[in-house]
Protein backbone atom coordinates (compact mmCIF):
# COMPACT_ATOMS: atom_id res chain seq x y z
CA UNK A 1 0.00 0.00 0.00
CA UNK A 2 2.71 2.49 0.92
CA UNK A 3 4.50 1.84 -2.39
CA UNK A 4 1.30 2.47 -4.29
CA UNK A 5 0.71 5.66 -2.33
CA UNK A 6 4.24 6.89 -2.81
CA UNK A 7 4.38 6.21 -6.53
CA UNK A 8 0.90 7.68 -7.01
CA UNK A 9 1.92 10.89 -5.36
CA UNK A 10 5.13 10.99 -7.30
CA UNK A 11 3.34 10.72 -10.64
CA UNK A 12 0.79 13.34 -9.67
CA UNK A 13 3.23 15.87 -8.36
CA UNK A 14 5.22 15.69 -11.60
CA UNK A 15 2.31 16.65 -13.82
CA UNK A 16 2.92 20.18 -15.11
CA UNK A 17 0.91 22.75 -13.23
CA UNK A 18 0.39 20.67 -10.09
CA UNK A 19 1.26 22.59 -6.97
CA UNK A 20 0.37 20.01 -4.37
CA UNK A 21 -0.83 16.43 -4.36
CA UNK A 22 -2.22 14.58 -1.38
CA UNK A 23 -3.79 11.33 -0.44
CA UNK A 24 -6.35 12.04 2.23
CA UNK A 25 -8.32 9.92 4.63
CA UNK A 26 -11.78 11.15 3.70
CA UNK A 27 -13.43 10.09 6.90
CA UNK A 28 -10.93 11.64 9.28
CA UNK A 29 -9.98 14.51 7.00
CA UNK A 30 -6.31 14.03 7.66
CA UNK A 31 -3.49 13.62 5.19
CA UNK A 32 -2.15 10.14 4.59
CA UNK A 33 0.65 11.33 2.36
CA UNK A 34 1.44 14.55 0.62
CA UNK A 35 3.72 16.36 -1.75
CA UNK A 36 3.19 20.00 -1.01
CA UNK A 37 4.03 23.17 -2.77
CA UNK A 38 5.43 26.15 -0.92
CA UNK A 39 3.15 27.69 1.64
CA UNK A 40 0.66 24.86 1.54
CA UNK A 41 -0.57 23.21 4.69
CA UNK A 42 -1.34 19.51 4.45
CA UNK A 43 -3.65 19.76 7.46
CA UNK A 44 -5.71 22.51 5.93
CA UNK A 45 -5.90 21.05 2.44
CA UNK A 46 -6.76 17.60 3.74
CA UNK A 47 -9.37 18.80 6.22
CA UNK A 48 -11.13 21.19 3.88
CA UNK A 49 -11.12 19.05 0.76
CA UNK A 50 -12.30 16.00 2.68
CA UNK A 51 -15.12 18.05 4.16
CA UNK A 52 -16.08 19.38 0.74
CA UNK A 53 -15.93 15.89 -0.73
CA UNK A 54 -18.15 14.46 1.98
CA UNK A 55 -20.65 17.31 1.74
CA UNK A 56 -20.84 17.07 -2.01
CA UNK A 57 -21.20 13.31 -1.82
CA UNK A 58 -24.01 13.73 0.68
CA UNK A 59 -25.67 16.29 -1.56
CA UNK A 60 -25.66 14.14 -4.67
CA UNK A 61 -26.92 11.13 -2.74
CA UNK A 62 -29.77 13.19 -1.35
CA UNK A 63 -30.59 14.20 -4.89
CA UNK A 64 -30.66 10.49 -5.81
CA UNK A 65 -27.80 10.81 -8.25
CA UNK A 66 -25.82 7.95 -6.80
CA UNK A 67 -22.40 8.52 -5.32
CA UNK A 68 -19.80 11.15 -5.98
CA UNK A 69 -16.93 10.13 -8.20
CA UNK A 70 -14.96 13.32 -8.40
CA UNK A 71 -15.22 17.05 -8.40
CA UNK A 72 -13.18 19.85 -9.79
CA UNK A 73 -13.33 23.23 -8.11
CA UNK A 74 -12.28 26.14 -10.26
CA UNK A 75 -11.20 29.30 -8.49
CA UNK A 76 -9.67 32.59 -9.51
CA UNK A 77 -6.19 31.31 -8.78
CA UNK A 78 -6.28 27.64 -9.59
CA UNK A 79 -8.08 24.35 -9.50
CA UNK A 80 -8.77 21.75 -6.91
CA UNK A 81 -9.29 18.26 -8.32
CA UNK A 82 -10.55 15.65 -5.91
CA UNK A 83 -11.50 12.07 -6.67
CA UNK A 84 -11.95 8.86 -4.78
CA UNK A 85 -14.33 6.45 -3.19
CA UNK A 86 -15.22 6.80 0.46
CA UNK A 87 -12.04 6.01 2.38
CA UNK A 88 -9.15 7.53 0.50
CA UNK A 89 -9.36 10.46 -1.81
CA UNK A 90 -6.81 11.95 -4.13
CA UNK A 91 -6.42 15.71 -3.98
CA UNK A 92 -4.56 17.89 -6.44
CA UNK A 93 -4.10 21.64 -6.21
CA UNK A 94 -3.19 22.99 -9.62
CA UNK A 95 -2.37 26.28 -11.25
CA UNK A 96 -4.92 28.26 -13.16
CA UNK A 97 -3.49 27.32 -16.54
CA UNK A 98 -2.61 23.73 -15.76
CA UNK A 99 -3.47 21.00 -18.24
CA UNK A 100 -6.58 19.76 -16.55
CA UNK A 101 -7.13 16.89 -18.93
CA UNK A 102 -3.79 15.39 -18.02
CA UNK A 103 -4.35 16.01 -14.35
CA UNK A 104 -7.74 14.34 -14.45
CA UNK A 105 -6.23 11.35 -16.22
CA UNK A 106 -3.55 10.98 -13.58
CA UNK A 107 -6.01 11.47 -10.77
CA UNK A 108 -8.22 8.72 -12.18
CA UNK A 109 -5.18 6.43 -12.40
CA UNK A 110 -4.29 7.30 -8.84
CA UNK A 111 -7.76 6.41 -7.62
CA UNK A 112 -7.54 3.07 -9.39
CA UNK A 113 -4.14 2.39 -7.92
CA UNK A 114 -5.39 3.02 -4.42
CA UNK A 115 -8.36 0.64 -4.65
Amino acid at each position, binding site marked *: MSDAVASTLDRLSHVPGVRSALI*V*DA*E*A*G*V*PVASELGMGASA*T*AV*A*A*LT*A*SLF*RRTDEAVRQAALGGLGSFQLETEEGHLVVAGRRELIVVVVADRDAQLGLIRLEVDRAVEALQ
Partner: protein
Amino acid sequence: MRRADIARLNELLREPMRSFVREARARIALLVNASGQVLAQHGFVGRYHVMNVAALAAATNASAHALAEITGAGRWQYMHHAGRRWQLFLAPFVTPAETLILVAIFDEHSTLGLVELFFQKLAAQVRALPEFGEALPAVNPASFEQELEAGLDRALAPDQPGGG
Protein backbone atom coordinates in the same frame (compact mmCIF):
# COMPACT_ATOMS: atom_id res chain seq x y z
CA MET B 1 -4.51 29.01 38.22
CA ARG B 2 -6.70 31.75 36.86
CA ARG B 3 -7.30 34.92 38.81
CA ALA B 4 -10.83 36.12 39.46
CA ASP B 5 -11.54 37.64 36.07
CA ILE B 6 -13.62 34.83 34.77
CA ALA B 7 -16.51 37.04 33.70
CA ARG B 8 -14.35 39.05 31.37
CA LEU B 9 -12.63 35.97 30.00
CA ASN B 10 -15.96 34.33 29.28
CA GLU B 11 -16.95 37.36 27.25
CA LEU B 12 -13.65 37.54 25.41
CA LEU B 13 -13.65 33.90 24.55
CA ARG B 14 -17.29 33.69 23.51
CA GLU B 15 -16.76 34.72 19.91
CA PRO B 16 -13.63 32.62 19.27
CA MET B 17 -15.46 29.59 20.68
CA ARG B 18 -18.54 30.24 18.60
CA SER B 19 -16.40 30.63 15.54
CA PHE B 20 -14.59 27.38 16.32
CA VAL B 21 -17.81 25.45 16.81
CA ARG B 22 -19.27 26.85 13.64
CA GLU B 23 -16.26 26.31 11.42
CA ALA B 24 -15.29 22.95 12.80
CA ARG B 25 -18.93 21.85 13.05
CA ALA B 26 -18.38 20.62 16.56
CA ARG B 27 -21.40 19.94 18.73
CA ILE B 28 -19.88 20.70 22.09
CA ALA B 29 -16.74 22.52 23.06
CA LEU B 30 -15.13 23.34 26.34
CA LEU B 31 -12.08 25.41 27.13
CA VAL B 32 -10.46 24.86 30.49
CA ASN B 33 -7.14 25.62 32.07
CA ALA B 34 -4.77 23.02 33.44
CA SER B 35 -6.47 23.21 36.84
CA GLY B 36 -9.83 22.32 35.37
CA GLN B 37 -11.29 25.80 35.63
CA VAL B 38 -13.82 26.46 32.89
CA LEU B 39 -13.06 29.49 30.78
CA ALA B 40 -15.59 29.01 28.00
CA GLN B 41 -18.03 26.46 26.76
CA HIS B 42 -20.52 25.88 24.01
CA GLY B 43 -23.29 23.36 23.88
CA PHE B 44 -23.48 22.21 27.47
CA VAL B 45 -26.61 22.73 29.49
CA GLY B 46 -26.00 21.12 32.84
CA ARG B 47 -23.35 22.12 35.33
CA TYR B 48 -22.85 18.49 36.22
CA HIS B 49 -21.56 17.58 32.79
CA VAL B 50 -19.36 20.62 32.47
CA MET B 51 -17.74 19.98 35.83
CA ASN B 52 -17.04 16.37 35.04
CA VAL B 53 -15.63 16.99 31.61
CA ALA B 54 -13.53 19.90 32.82
CA ALA B 55 -12.01 17.86 35.61
CA LEU B 56 -11.34 14.88 33.37
CA ALA B 57 -9.83 17.07 30.66
CA ALA B 58 -7.40 18.59 33.13
CA ALA B 59 -6.52 15.14 34.45
CA THR B 60 -6.06 13.76 30.94
CA ASN B 61 -3.76 16.62 30.06
CA ALA B 62 -1.70 16.04 33.18
CA SER B 63 -1.43 12.29 32.51
CA ALA B 64 -0.57 12.70 28.86
CA HIS B 65 1.99 15.36 29.67
CA ALA B 66 3.63 13.10 32.25
CA LEU B 67 3.62 10.17 29.84
CA ALA B 68 5.15 12.26 27.10
CA GLU B 69 7.89 13.40 29.43
CA ILE B 70 8.68 9.94 30.76
CA THR B 71 8.84 8.43 27.29
CA GLY B 72 10.76 11.34 25.84
CA ALA B 73 8.04 11.80 23.25
CA GLY B 74 8.03 15.54 23.60
CA ARG B 75 4.94 17.68 23.96
CA TRP B 76 1.75 15.81 23.33
CA GLN B 77 -0.49 17.29 20.66
CA TYR B 78 -3.96 15.88 20.88
CA MET B 79 -6.06 12.94 21.88
CA HIS B 80 -8.75 11.65 19.60
CA HIS B 81 -11.40 9.13 20.47
CA ALA B 82 -13.45 7.90 17.55
CA GLY B 83 -16.70 6.55 18.97
CA ARG B 84 -19.41 4.94 16.96
CA ARG B 85 -21.48 8.06 16.74
CA TRP B 86 -19.54 10.70 18.62
CA GLN B 87 -15.90 11.62 18.46
CA LEU B 88 -13.83 13.38 21.06
CA PHE B 89 -10.91 15.70 20.47
CA LEU B 90 -8.84 16.91 23.37
CA ALA B 91 -5.80 19.09 22.89
CA PRO B 92 -3.69 21.50 24.94
CA PHE B 93 -2.13 24.70 23.80
CA VAL B 94 0.28 26.90 25.61
CA THR B 95 -0.12 30.62 26.15
CA PRO B 96 2.26 32.87 28.11
CA ALA B 97 -0.32 33.03 30.88
CA GLU B 98 -1.09 29.34 31.20
CA THR B 99 -1.79 26.11 29.40
CA LEU B 100 -5.32 25.73 28.13
CA ILE B 101 -7.13 22.62 27.02
CA LEU B 102 -9.84 22.35 24.42
CA VAL B 103 -12.35 19.55 24.47
CA ALA B 104 -14.48 19.21 21.36
CA ILE B 105 -17.16 16.64 20.69
CA PHE B 106 -18.34 16.14 17.15
CA ASP B 107 -20.30 13.73 15.03
CA GLU B 108 -20.36 12.56 11.42
CA HIS B 109 -20.87 16.12 10.19
CA SER B 110 -17.30 16.97 10.98
CA THR B 111 -13.93 15.29 10.82
CA LEU B 112 -10.84 15.10 12.93
CA GLY B 113 -8.99 17.12 10.33
CA LEU B 114 -11.50 19.96 10.42
CA VAL B 115 -11.56 20.06 14.19
CA GLU B 116 -7.78 20.06 14.35
CA LEU B 117 -7.53 22.75 11.70
CA PHE B 118 -9.84 25.13 13.48
CA PHE B 119 -8.45 24.25 16.87
CA GLN B 120 -5.16 25.69 15.67
CA LYS B 121 -6.96 28.81 14.59
CA LEU B 122 -8.69 29.07 17.97
CA ALA B 123 -5.40 28.63 19.76
CA ALA B 124 -3.84 31.41 17.73
CA GLN B 125 -6.78 33.72 18.47
CA VAL B 126 -6.60 33.03 22.20
CA ARG B 127 -2.84 33.51 22.33
CA ALA B 128 -3.30 36.90 20.72
CA LEU B 129 -5.56 38.10 23.53
CA PRO B 130 -3.76 40.40 25.99
CA GLU B 131 -5.31 38.54 28.90
CA PHE B 132 -3.26 35.52 27.93
CA GLY B 133 -0.17 37.42 27.02
CA GLU B 134 1.52 37.50 30.39
CA ALA B 135 2.31 35.02 33.12
CA LEU B 136 -0.21 34.95 35.95
CA PRO B 137 0.54 35.61 39.60
CA ALA B 138 0.22 32.71 42.01
CA VAL B 139 -3.27 32.17 43.40
CA ASN B 140 -4.29 31.57 46.94
CA PRO B 141 -5.25 27.89 47.24
CA ALA B 142 -8.05 28.90 49.58
CA SER B 143 -9.83 30.64 46.74
CA PHE B 144 -9.42 27.70 44.36
CA GLU B 145 -12.88 26.29 44.97
CA GLN B 146 -14.49 29.68 44.75
CA GLU B 147 -12.90 30.42 41.42
CA LEU B 148 -13.87 27.04 40.03
CA GLU B 149 -17.48 27.73 40.90
CA ALA B 150 -17.28 31.24 39.50
CA GLY B 151 -16.01 29.83 36.23
CA LEU B 152 -18.87 27.37 36.01
CA ASP B 153 -21.50 29.95 36.83
CA ARG B 154 -20.29 32.34 34.21
CA ALA B 155 -19.82 29.71 31.55
CA LEU B 156 -23.34 28.42 31.95
CA ALA B 157 -25.31 31.55 32.72
CA PRO B 158 -25.54 33.69 29.60
CA ASP B 159 -26.49 31.36 26.80
CA GLN B 160 -28.36 28.62 28.55
CA PRO B 161 -32.10 27.95 28.72
CA GLY B 162 -32.05 27.81 32.48
CA GLY B 163 -30.70 31.30 32.54
CA GLY B 164 -33.68 32.27 30.29
